[in-house]
Each structure stands twice: as structure tokens, then as C-alpha cells.
């Protein structure tokens, strides 16, 4: 396919789509009566059909396949599930996922909060925030490449200079350079740094808006009482923005559970760094084990639910207060 042909295909697809939409609007517009089930159907059916065929059916099918073997031929009961919780390689994957989901939200939220408080009402606030927020615009693949270069390792020999910033700093400090992405178990932490780097901007933006929404009489009263600096944050800011903090923590942990781009780009899951979302891809699309991959996808789904429920409950509480 040359570029011309590709753009042609795109134009065709869009034209096709515009045609269908136009037909729907035209037909509904012709209708005489105002309240008509057919009009409503024409409006919602495209969306409902797509969701039914493309999301609900596949999800049900995935759950079904999780009880079958790698080729979906014979029923194996709960074998895939017990494999996940007994196989030693899988246990490493679960351990890593747990570390990711615990560390990332806490670190990103903490840094985001500290930064939001520090730059609040500073003269260069907008620019200072943009600097932290920018990584959110970059793809996780791009972010991973940026950080792989920071971690880059060269063997410690004469005439070989380090090109990775972190190893060069170690050398300047008189230490040995190290394989940041290879040495377990710390390599997982170095991968998590990338996610924290990306997510801190999200945390900062939401928390900053919450901080600005604290009524000024509260902060002024606290100032009159002599509260400043860290104690001000501890006793006034944090309690006042508690709902926003919960939202940020839970949102980041949901995102972290599903993230796979970083692991895929930086280590490919080697050196004991795999997580559930990455293992899903490896099993399903590289090793062709549909059963195990489906089980991992279901596990991901099941892990997300309690966080969402907690999130919604906290919001309800916040609303009724």
C-alpha cells in the first residue's frame, strides 16, 4: 500500500460513515410523529450494537475461554486459575503487579501533592505546572525510551564512557555502574519510576484544583492561629482535599493495573519484571495460550472492580457530608 492508497482508504471509510449517519438523520428527520420508538432506536442502536458485539460478547467469551485449555478445545475447569496462583513464574508476576499497584499511586500522589502545594499561587505557577504535566502528553512508549536512556548501562571498562545519566552519576560519585533494568528485584522499582513520572502530573492537576477550592476563610483562620508550612498542609490542606486524594489514588491504581506499555518497551517482561497486563499479551499473542491469557484478563477485570467500588463509595460519602 502506498500513502495515496492509504489516504484513499481513510477517505472511503469516513465517507461511508458520514453516509450512514446522514441516512439515519435524514430518515428520522422525515418522521411525522415526535415521540416514536423508531427515532430513539435509530439514535442509540449504532452505539449499542457496537458495544454488544465489540465489548460485551468478547468479554463473556473471554470468561468462557478462561475455563478451557490453550487452544480452547478441551474444558479444564479451574486449572488456569490455579496455575496463576501456584506457578512460580506467575507468582513473580503477581508480586510485581502488587508492588506496582501499591507504589505507583502513593509516590505519584505524594509528589503531585507536594508540588501542587509548593507552586500554589507562585508567580510562575502555570509554567511550573506545565513542566510536570507534559509527560502525560507523551506516549508511554516514548516515556519508556526516554527513561531507558537514563538507565542505559555500559560495561565498566577503560575507555568506555557511560552514556546513561544515572550510571554516569554513579561513576562521578566513584561507584560502579549497574544494570538498572536487569538486576532483580530493584528493576521493577526503576520501571515504576517511569509510571510515577507520567502520573504525577495528573495527581498534581487534580489536587491543585482541589486546593484552590478550599474556602479562604478556613486557611485564613488557620493562619491567624499560627499554622504554617508543613503543619498547615497536614492539618488543613490534606483533610480539606481528602475526596480528591481518594479519587487520584484510586484512578492511578486502576491505570497502573492495566499498564503494559512500559514493561513491554523497557524489558519485554524479562528479568522478572512482568506484570499481569504484560503477561496477558505474552501468553495470548506470543505464546498462543488463549486459556491462560483469558484467565489473566479476567483476573485484571476482577482486580479493578473493588477499587472502582471503593472509589464510588468514597464519592458518595463525600457528597453526603
Amino acid at each position, binding site marked *: 500500500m502506498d500513502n495515496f492508497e492509504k489516504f484513499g482508504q481513510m477517505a472511503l*471509510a469516513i465517507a461511508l460513515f458520514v453516509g450512514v449517519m446522514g441516512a439515519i438523520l435524514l430518515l428520522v428527520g422525515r418522521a411525522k410523529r415526535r415521540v416514536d420508538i423508531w427515532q430513539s432506536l435509530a439514535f442509540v442502536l449504532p452505539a449499542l450494537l457496537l458495544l454488544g458485539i465489540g465489548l460485551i460478547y468478547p468479554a463473556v467469551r473471554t470468561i468462557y475461554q478462561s475455563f478451557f485449555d490453550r487452544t480452547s478445545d478441551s474444558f479444564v475447569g479451574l486449572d488456569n486459575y490455579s496455575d496463576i496462583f501456584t506457578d512460580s513464574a506467575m507468582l513473580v508476576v503477581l508480586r510485581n503487579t502488587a508492588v506496582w499497584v501499591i507504589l505507583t499511586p502513593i509516590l505519584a500522589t505524594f509528589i503531585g501533592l507536594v508540588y501542587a502545594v509548593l507552586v500554589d499561587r507562585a508567580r510562575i505557577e502555570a509554567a511550573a505546572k506545565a513542566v510536570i504535566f507534559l509527560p502525560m502528553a507523551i506516549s508511554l512508549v516514548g516515556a519508556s525510551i526516554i527513561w531507558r536512556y537514563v538507565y542505559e548501562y555500559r560495561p565498566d571498562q577503560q575507555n568506555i564512557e557511560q552514556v546513561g545519566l544515572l550510571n554516569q552519576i554513579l561513576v562521578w560519585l566513584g561507584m560502579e555502574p549497574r544494570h538498572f533494568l536487569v538486576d532483580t528485584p530493584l528493576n521493577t522499582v526503576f520501571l515504576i519510576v517511569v509510571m510515577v513520572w507520567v502520573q504525577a502530573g495528573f495527581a498534581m492537576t487534580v489536587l491543585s484544583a482541589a486546593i484552590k477550592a478550599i474556602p479562604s476563610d478556613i486557611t485564613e483562620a488557620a493562619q491567624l492561629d499560627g499554622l504554617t508550612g508543613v503543619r498547615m498542609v497536614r492539618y488543613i490542606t490534606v483533610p480539606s482535599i481528602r475526596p480528591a486524594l481518594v479519587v487520584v489514588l484510586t484512578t492511578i491504581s486502576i491505570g497502573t493495573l492495566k499498564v503494559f506499555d512500559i514493561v513491554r518497551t523497557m524489558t519485554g517482561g524479562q528479568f522478572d519484571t512482568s506484570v499481569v497486563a504484560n503477561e496477558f499479551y505474552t501468553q495470548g499473542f506470543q505464546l498462543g495460550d488463549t486459556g491462560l491469557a483469558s484467565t489473566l484478563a479476567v483476573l485484571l477485570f476482577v482486580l479493578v472492580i473493588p477499587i472502582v467500588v471503593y472509589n464510588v463509595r468514597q464519592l458518595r460519602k463525600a457528597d453526603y457530608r
Partner: protein
Amino acid sequence: MTAAVPTPALQEELATVEPATITGRARKRLTSRWASLAALVIAVLWTLPTFGLLLTSFRPENDIRTSGWWNWFSDPQLTLDNYDEVLYGGTSLSTYFINSIIITIPSVIIPVSIACLASYAFAWMRFPFRDTLFVAVFALQIVPLQVALIPLLRIYVDADLNGTFWPLWISHTIFALPLAIFLLHNFMREVPAELMEAARVDGAGHVTIFTRIMVPLVTPAIAAFAIFQFLWVWNDLLVAITMATGAQDIQPLTARLAELSGSRGSTWHLLSAGAFVSIVIPVIVFVFLQRYFVRGLLAGSVKG
């Protein structure tokens, strides 16, 4: 998930809070020297990695091989050769750049239009099971993409669509719908009912109300979502490598870069330039549409 989606009221607040409080209180310098220092350290930590790789992408290949980017300051030499090679050389990223554009444009237009129609129906039309269906669509936001991918791929293979752009367009459309419908519905609900009643009295049907009143009124919300969706598709890797495996004809930039990072992990003159070829579009969007961008990202932060 639900929580992170700002309601129209909250969005309003996010938008208005800043000017109000700033004029209300005098701007101050950073509270103390230590606070400024801490903020500066974080800001530097957040920019240095990107800056290092950006500078690297403009250094001559041989310099990149032998020394780190900080050596540039003692031996400043800049070149565009890396970009030339990564775009038009063996890695031919220009092809993938085009692919990314081809994938992204329909993957934004189609779900946004379908979601507009559906959210109008959910907000202002009456039909059986309306509220139940809306809650169901809303709940679908929490389904991780992974749960749908394998059977979905099967469907595409059976329909003989594999190897074309269709699986990517359709998948991105489907995965965008729950969030898009929920978001646009919230905004459409806020439009005063009197407005629609008045139009109805004048004899306007649903289609007229939808195209003449509703869509123009919620354009800011549509823009915020469209920008979010644009970046999501542009930056996506998961859908890309499952639906477009190994095919140079249809793979987007992200998939190619991830592959390069794995197979040619130390050719930094290519990787650095390649990374910035993929980063430049989102950054342009970020700089020029910052406000929509932040709103869109906040609204969509749990997608996927």
C-alpha cells in the same frame, strides 16, 4: 473510574477557580527558600530525562556512541542526520507516521459522532429501558480492554478484515464509546429543557434540535473529548500491537518504536530521534490546546 470523570459542574469549577482566587489574594513568591528549592528539584527531575534524549537526537551518531549528552556542552555539534535516517532510512518511520495519522483521524471522528447521537437519545428521548441501558453503558467503562481483545481479533479474522485498518478503527471506536457517551450525556443533560421545549413548539423535530441546538451547545465538551481520544489513539500501544501485528502497511508509530526498542535497543541515534518523531504531535496539541487537553485528560484518565 466514575469519580475521575468531572461533572459539568466540577469542570466549571476547574475552569473558573483559578482566576477568581488569584485576583482575590495577592500573588506571593514561593513561601520559603527551601520550598522553592524543593519545587526546583522536582521540576528538574521531571525535565532532565526528556531534555537529555532530545539533545541526543540532534548529536552526531558517533558522539552518541562514545559519550553522554552532557558532553555536548564541551563539544557542541548539532545535526539532523538522525531524523533523516530514522524517517527515510531502513527504519522508515515516515511510513509509520502516516499510518498513525490514518489510524487516528477516523478513530476520533467515528466514535465522537456515534456517541453524540446516543447521548442525545439517552438525555432527551423517551424509550423503554432507557435508564437501565444507560447505566449498563456507563458500567462498561470499567472493563479492561484486555478482556475483549482475543475474541475481538477472532471476529476480525473471521470477517477477513485482518491486515487492513478496519480492526484498528472499529476497536478504537468501540473502546471509546462508554466514556464518550457518559461524558457527552452529562453535558447534554445540563442544557435547559425550556430551550428544547421552545424549539418543539416551533415545530422542530429531534433531528433539528440535535443538529441546531444540542451539538453547537456542547461543542466544548465534544472538543475536549475529541482531543483526549486523539491522544489516546495516537499514543496507544496495546490495540496497535494486537490488531496490527508485524504489518508495516498498517502499524502505527508506537508499535514500531516498541519493536525497535526491543530489537535494536542500543541504536540510540535512531531511538532518540524516533521517540521525538512520535512525541512531537502530542506536544503541539498540548501547547496550543492546553485547556481542552487538561480537561480531556482528566475526564479520560481511567480509560482502557
